């Protein structure tokens, strides 16, 4: 959806987690075996984000309306902070994703396994987008000329 070109690795996994269902985020956490000890710094909280757009797509900024957004911040015992921001109102998912964001920044043994699973979720998300796009492509018009007059 977005241009992933300039994303850092952390932006990449945060984006994948934000787009994941609560269940798949929960299952990533389960895959860790034991959840590391953590402290909640900002409790999962739902608020809004004002969505800005641009007139004509590229001109003057304007506010087009708000969206619900849920965030959470946790801290692991070693001090690593994990953040989660995602559209919607799922507090549980926010807390789980924040823990995962923290674990993914550490040199934990689980890190590479987690990244593999996150890649797999990203591929599923991409496959889903691909199907949607191919359904739209089936409605693309192929113009052809029936009769062309001389005058």
């Amino acid at each position, binding site marked *: 959806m977005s241009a992933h070109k300039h994303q850092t690795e*952390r932006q990449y996994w945060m984006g994948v987690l934000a787009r994941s269902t609560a269940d798949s985020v929960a299952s990533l956490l389960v895959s860790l075996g034991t959840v590391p000890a953590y402290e909640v*710094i*900002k409790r999962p909280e739902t608020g809004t984000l004002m969505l800005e757009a641009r007139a004509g797509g590229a001109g003057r900024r304007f506010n087009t309306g708000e969206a619900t957004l849920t965030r959470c911040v946790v*801290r692991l015992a070693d001090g690593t*902070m994990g953040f989660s921001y995602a559209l919607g109102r799922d507090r549980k998912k926010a807390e789980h994703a924040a823990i995962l964001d923290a674990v993914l*920044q550490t040199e934990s043994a689980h890190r590479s396994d987690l990244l593999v699973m996150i890649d797999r979720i990203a591929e599923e998300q991409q496959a889903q987008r691909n199907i949607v796009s191919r359904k739209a492509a089936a409605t693309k018009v192929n113009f052809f000329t029936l009769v062309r007059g001389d005058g």
Partner: protein
Amino acid sequence: MTKARAMQPLASGLADPVFGSQIVFRTVLDALSAPGKIFDLSDNLAGTPAKLPPAAATLLLTLADYETPVWLQSEDQETRRWLSFHTGAPKASAPSEARFAVIDGAASSARLGDFNLGEDRYPDTSTTILVLCDALEGGLPVALTGPGIKGSTRFAPRGLDASLWREIADNNAMYPLGVDLIFVAGSQLAGLPRSTQIGGGL
């Protein structure tokens, strides 16, 4: 990547952001409605960065958000990082840009007239200033009169630069424009809105 930053511990915010901030907000409202009266926030104090008294920290957590630039007279990295983490409030580029400000009552460098004084149509857009003092009692007393005060009341914050009262009188003369002040010390606060007249101790 952001690990160096993440390792530094950060003071926590309000224990209960919703109800805590509502109680504190109510207290601020009461304080500005009863100028000079001392209120205590002991029951709802937030975690506090080293250089900010608990009442000032708790007020900022309650009042500031990403749309209210905050100006700190003594800019300090830990305070700023704490404030931006918990409230998202940006740093005001100048006193006149600030919706909230924290000044040291003992320093003479802060000029109230430099802050945003509001405009005729929207006087409410002026800066609200937290004035740090040593204590809210035991200083040179002044007599306060005006809305919210029956007759007059005595207010004697300690540890203020003498020039501040002159500044406050000048601010008062601009009514309905002007800044509103909240004096803070430890866990206590007292309001001094622009509508309050200062007499006595000058």
